[in-house]
């Protein structure tokens, strides 16, 4: 943690909202990415972002600086998003036409078939992620969406690197299983005997 970030966190711990704004400016995209990765719905992801920063203002006093600030923040985002998703429950089991589901960027340039296919794909990914245990889901989002290293993931998830690798391995395996029509599966069973679920 650098000196500027230290100072920013210290000001935020004293209730300075300007410092919170600085933290928001620095981390909002990462927070949104993780939140969206879990809930996969725009409005819900925005609710999570809002909840996280309000919660942060209240709870940052508890941050003692023993770990990196971003891992502390990422853990908070992940827990909030998973809680949010759990509470929302069946609202997420929606149809393909639901507002907020993935819409391709240059829709005008794509044919209706392409748009439909992309929406269907996004829905399939969402359903496949919903089936994952929370730990595996968190591991996949931290690594494949946010691009954290194993060490950073272990810090954010409060576990060993071996556990991180195991969760990633089984998470990917389950996702490939659920999305086998979209993702080619090769080397069936390979690796399963070498990494045990912790």
């Amino acid at each position: 943690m650098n000196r500027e970030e230290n100072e920013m966190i210290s000001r935020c711990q004293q209730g300075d909202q300007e410092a919170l704004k600085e933290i928001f400016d620095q981390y909002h995209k990462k927070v949104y990415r993780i939140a969206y990765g879990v809930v996969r719905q725009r409005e819900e992801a925005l609710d999570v972002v809002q909840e996280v920063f309000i919660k942060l203002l209240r709870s940052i006093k508890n941050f003692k600086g023993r770990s990196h600030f971003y891992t502390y923040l990422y853990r908070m985002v992940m827990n909030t998003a998973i809680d949010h998703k759990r509470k929302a429950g069946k609202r997420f089991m929606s149809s393909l036409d639901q507002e907020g589901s993935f819409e391709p960027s240059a829709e005008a340039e794509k044919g209706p078939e392409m748009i439909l296919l992309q929406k269907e794909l996004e829905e399939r990914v969402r359903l496949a992620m919903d089936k994952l245990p929370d730990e595996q889901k968190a591991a996949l989002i931290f690594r494949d969406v946010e691009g954290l290293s194993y060490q950073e993931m272990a810090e954010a998830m409060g576990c060993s690197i071996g556990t991180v690798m195991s969760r990633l391995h089984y998470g990917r395996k389950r996702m490939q299983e659920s999305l086998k029509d979209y993702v080619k599966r090769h080397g069936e069973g390979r690796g399963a005997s070498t990494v045990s679920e912790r």
Partner: protein
Amino acid sequence: MTNSCSSISTVLEKYFDQEVTDEERFLVEGHLQDCPACRDALKSMEELRTLMRVPVEEAVRKEDFPWVWQKIEREIRLQEKRTWWQSLRSWLDVTPLFRRKVWIPAVATVVVLLFITTQIIFKKTPSYPDVSVVEYVESQSDNVMVYQLEDPKVTVIWLFEGPEEERTTT
């Protein structure tokens, strides 16, 4: 898949996640040149990552974050301005138990119990005047009984005329 695939499998995922040492990278890349099965396994991991990442990046690109900050600021201000009564109300709204109005009979019971307890504790016991004087004077014709109270000043006189008649004057 060749026999050496099983030895590579432990590091293939680490290779995909860019967590290998130089030595391991050299080993995996050498293996991948000759093994289409492992190349395909790597490709399917990449496809999965793309499937998960692209919609998220798309959503981030489209979002208006300054508006999100304004919403957060507004919410913080709102929470700061709340009176104790509003906080209590919002707490009652948030708590699932209270949302179902289960609290109404509970509060009613507490109020009734409080009322009964207060009545028992502060119940006025009948008090008698501090000082009273009773005098009884007997004679052959009439009997007189005088009853005096200090506060309030009241005097009650009974006059007994004969054994069966009695009068009271105050």
